[in-house]
Each structure stands twice: as structure tokens, then as C-alpha cells.
């Protein structure tokens, strides 16, 4: 099992290389867009780097799909016209405990979920994928 600190160090390295930011800026709570100045294209760069670093495949939109898949809910229970319902917001807060809960509210647009991403979000994504798809398999 890869330790969380080891994952964090590799995530940090990938983000530093992709965004050209200083190592000190890449803290677990730093947000990719607001704090580190990432654009949507940079997320793809980071994902490709993480896939290479860990030998994994990160599914596109995995977090969003997880919210709907959770507990076998139907899409309209958590989403209405692309925006989170109260239940959807609650599920997303549970799924992304690293994000300030106040930023996730009823009516939040699911397309804007990437703006919530912090460095820790990527650590958690890698951890989850590694658990589901052990390295070397």
C-alpha cells in the first residue's frame, strides 16, 4: 500500500511541473484554480502526469459520477437541470471532505465541481484509484 505522504509528494511534483508554481505553494488545502492559477486544460495535464507517475487510469468526471452512483440514487434525486439538490450537496460534501463545506450548496452547478478541487482532492482521487486498481495489475 502506498502511503498518503508518498502520494502527496508525487501529486505535488506533478502539480509543480504542470503549473510551474513554487513547491511551497502546493499545500493540501490550496485550490487548483483560485490559489494555484490553474485552467481547465491544466487539470488534464495534471491527470496525465498522475497517471504516468502512479501507473493508473483516472476516469474523467469520476467524482461527479460517484455522487450519483452513491447508494443507488437516481440522477434527479441529486441533480436538477445540472444543479445540485439539497441531497446532492450533502452527498458531495461527504465525498469531498477536504473542501470547505460552505462552498458546496443546493443549486451549485455540477460543471463547476472542478473549481472546488484542492491538492488534497487529487491525493484522495489517486488513493481511491490505487485501492480499486492496485499498482502492477
Amino acid at each position, binding site marked *: 500500500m502506498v502511503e498518503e505522504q508518498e502520494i502527496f509528494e508525487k501529486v505535488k511534483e506533478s502539480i509543480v511541473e504542470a503549473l510551474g508554481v513554487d513547491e511551497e505553494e502546493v499545500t493540501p488545502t490550496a485550490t487548483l484554480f483560485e490559489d494555484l492559477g490553474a*485552467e*481547465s*486544460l*491544466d487539470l*488534464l*495535464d495534471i491527470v*496525465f*502526469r498522475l497517471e504516468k507517475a502512479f501507473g493508473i487510469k483516472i476516469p*474523467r*468526471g469520476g467524482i*461527479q*459520477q460517484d455522487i*450519483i452512483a452513491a447508494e443507488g440514487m437516481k*440522477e434527479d434525486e441529486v*441533480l436538477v*437541470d*445540472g444543479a445540485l439538490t439539497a441531497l446532492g450537496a450533502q452527498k458531495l460534501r461527504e465525498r469531498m471532505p477536504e473542501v470547505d463545506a460552505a462552498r458546496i450548496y443546493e443549486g451549485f452547478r*455540477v*460543471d463547476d465541481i472542478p473549481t472546488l478541487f484542492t491538492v488534497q482532492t487529487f491525493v484522495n482521487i489517486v488513493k481511491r484509484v490505487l485501492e480499486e486498481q492496485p499498482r502492477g495489475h
Partner: protein
Amino acid sequence: MRIGTDIVAVSRIKKLLTTHSESTGRIFTRNEIEYCRQKKNTYEHFAARFAAKESVMKAVGKGWLQGLNWTDIEVINLPSGAPCICPHGTLKRLMQQAHISSFLLSLSHCKEYAIAMVIAQ
């Protein structure tokens, strides 16, 4: 009717595709890659096509949730040269669900940036 728009820095797409050249086929179709590579300003054309794909994602909304892949959205050129969206796979299903029959697409690019505007109708 819904709209979507996106702007892409040409330098960013160039950096992405040169750093991760093995992943080009995860974003662009074989036709798109051939089209862009035969152009003098290769990365301007890649950037415009990427902006078009993002614009379609925005116009459709929640595309990620349904497993929409970048290559489900293909930009092709009509004999007149006008670009248009050719839907594949999951995008076709999403269009049926959202009662979208087609997309209107406009692209523009210069050395630094490429933009796309999409109308789903």
C-alpha cells in the same frame, strides 16, 4: 436551445500535446489529428478543436456524468471548409435525451488563442 463557449491558449495545448503526445488520441480523433498535423499552424487548429469540444460539453451540460469522452465530439470540416460537430457514441445518446438535433459551431484562432462558440439546437 443552449450555448457553450470556450477559449484556449495555443501555448497551453501545445505544451499538453508535446508533454503527453501518447495521450493525443484520448482527446482527438484520428481525423482531427491528421487534419491539424497537415496544417502549418498545427497547434492553433488543435486549440480551436479543443475549445469546440469544451463548448459542446458546456452546451450539453453534465456531460462528464454520462461518461462523455473527448473523442465522442469530433470536429469535421464540410467541403466548403466550414467546421461542424460530428457526434459519436455517448454524445449521440445525450443529444436524444436533451432533444438536440444538431450543433452550430464557429471557430476563430490567432497565434496566441483559439475560441469556439457552440449552439445546441
